[in-house]
């Protein structure tokens, strides 16, 4: 597998704060790599360093097999970036905004025209071409932000939390768009602190915290790191302490908690855990309402690795 990006021992310090701490990783051709980490974990800083927007203290970065530098315009030509904050001209309408940013890469007018059309289609803004950014809703504005970053058909795309504060409809549109881009052959680096997105979208995931890589691998490989297999929650009214203690001693049970009439059990491993539990509740004549069973999430992995939640 070809490496599109190779980052070696990247370190970046702001005054005293080490924002990125000795990072080493690769990005393979055609994959979506997720950078997952809580606020301030160094995701944006890492991207800015890779793009030569920031000077870093140590390490090396190569893209397409060449060293990345501020004036490496032939590398930059193949890169598209969607920044965390919306970056468009207030004075230009949707079409003209995409036209300007695309025009920074593509000089040919005709080519640009078809590219802009495709970008508008991808993010579903065809009907808003003449709208000014002020007239767009938050979700539509984010879509414009994406279109501006990818209209020139880059081979390598960086998306920095493109779905922050976006309604479900726009979010689905954006996630679909990203998958379409990958199908067309782009390599994508996707940062977020929404683990659901990462699970759904990414081929490989890097979990970052305090500028360090805690773990990396595929979704399944990472979940294996969490020493739990299943999480079950049941709504039970006024459960007595003795029952809870009994459940605690069941096979495979890792932890039991009871709060606000909600019984919460995590299992280390095994199947049929829920059946066994229900049988027991019936036997004791305890009434229960809803039952949910979940596989562990990346949040559990993060919890396992750091002892804190990914999102507060």
């Amino acid at each position, binding site marked *: 597998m070809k490496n599109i990006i190779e980052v070696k021992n990247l370190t970046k310090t702001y005054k005293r704060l080490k924002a990125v701490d000795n990072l080493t990783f690769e990005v393979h051709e055609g994959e979506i790599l997720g950078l997952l980490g809580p606020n301030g974990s160094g995701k944006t800083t890492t991207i800015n360093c890779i793009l030569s927007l920031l000077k870093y203290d140590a390490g090396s970065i190569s893209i397409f097999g060449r060293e990345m530098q501020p004036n490496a315009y032939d590398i930059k030509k193949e890169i598209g970036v969607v920044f965390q904050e919306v*970056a468009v001209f207030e004075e230009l309408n949707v079409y003209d905004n995409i*036209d300007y940013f695309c025009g920074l890469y593509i000089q040919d007018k005709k080519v640009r025209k078809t590219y802009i059309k495709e970008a508008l289609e991808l993010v579903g803004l065809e009907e808003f071409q003449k709208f000014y950014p002020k007239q767009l809703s938050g979700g539509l504005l984010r879509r414009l932000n994406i279109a501006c970053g990818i209209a020139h058909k880059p081979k390598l795309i960086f998306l920095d939390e493109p779905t922050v504060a976006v309604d479900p409809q726009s979010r689905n549109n954006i996630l679909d768009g990203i998958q379409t881009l990958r199908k067309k052959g782009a390599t994508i680096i996707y940062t977020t602190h929404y683990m659901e997105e990462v699970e759904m979208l990414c081929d490989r995931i890097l979990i970052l915290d305090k500028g360090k890589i805690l773990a990396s691998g595929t979704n399944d490989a990472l979940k294996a790191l969490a020493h739990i297999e299943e999480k079950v929650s049941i709504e039970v009214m006024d459960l007595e302490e003795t029952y809870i203690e009994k459940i605690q001693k069941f096979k495979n049970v890792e932890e039991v908690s009871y709060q606000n009439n909600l019984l919460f059990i995590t299992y280390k491993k095994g199947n049929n855990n829920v059946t066994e539990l229900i049988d027991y509740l019936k036997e004791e004549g305890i009434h229960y309402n809803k039952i949910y069973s979940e596989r562990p999430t990346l949040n559990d992995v993060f919890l396992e690795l750091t002892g804190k939640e990914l999102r507060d």
Partner: protein
Amino acid sequence: MTVFKTFLKVLNKYKGTLILYTVILIFFAGFNIETNDTGTDFVSSKPDVLIVNQDEEVGITKSLVHYMEDHSNMVAIKDTEEARDDALFYRDVNYIIYIPAHYREDFLAGKNPVIVVKSTGDYQSSLAELLLTRYLKLAEFYQIIEVNEDALIEQIETTLSKEPVVEMTSHLDRNQLEKATRYFNFANYCILAGCIYVVCFILSSFKTKGVHKRTIISSTNYKTFNRKLLLSNALFAFVLWAFYIVLGIILVGDVLLSMHGIFYAINSFLFTLCALTIAFLIGNAIANKNAISGLVNVIALGSSFLCGAFVPMEWLPDKVLAIAHILPSYWYIKTNEYLKGLEVFDMDALKPIICNMGVIVVFIVIFIILTNFISHKKQIQK
């Protein structure tokens, strides 16, 4: 081309503001034509002059006093300095000449005694000044060849009588020049406000944090991009200036197609360049659009008031004018004021204009250095 095209599109968004400033200019210039027509007839009259003579009125002193009396209106004013200053302020007198004691004696002895004057600085006073200088220049000249005082006086007076004084005013259309000066003085406000406002807003749009970042990471060479942006702005300023010149010709008249017009144009062109550099400085230092529009108002209105763009310079208190020296507008307006009284365009007459323009060039250089300094500092911070 992308940069320039986008520049035009963004500019298009600010056309309202530009139209507003232009309408203000037209309105003001139109209003000026009204007020000036009433003053047409006194333009050709003689200046009001007061001579404070500490010397005895004999010989060369007497001749000088008589010459001035013949060609101007002598006014009588109470014999205190305060009364004289008041008279100057209220335009009861245009020009006061102080002949020192022993003037005649010193002059004949070749000591070049100094004659102090006070003036309102307007057109009338420049007429009086012309009379006085003409007399003194001749006196100096003939003193070298004539030893006898009576013969000297006779020489001066014959020469003076051969050159009629009336001719001085005949070439110029005072009314139009007065209008031209007022038009260009007021344009000080419109050039400053229009130029700074538009250029700063456009710069801040291109340099908004995210948009700027996108430009930096793109495959467009950043230096080329900057150069294109700079040129676009300069082109805009040039068009704005050219438009105001054409507007001036329409509103003021054909005096602007003469030598005077060329100098008004050069002066305003230089000033537009200066406004452009101020705009670059502000645009580079400040990104917040609200702060920019506040600052533009302070700068454009402030320097217009302080430097006499709205009211004639002579009406402003000395203290205000002293402060005004540190503003480019002062030197621009000073040239405009000087131009309206200018008779001939020889090297001597152009010297003050060149000096004023030199000061503006210095301002331009300072602003460019400051802009470079600030943008360099910002880059290091990154």
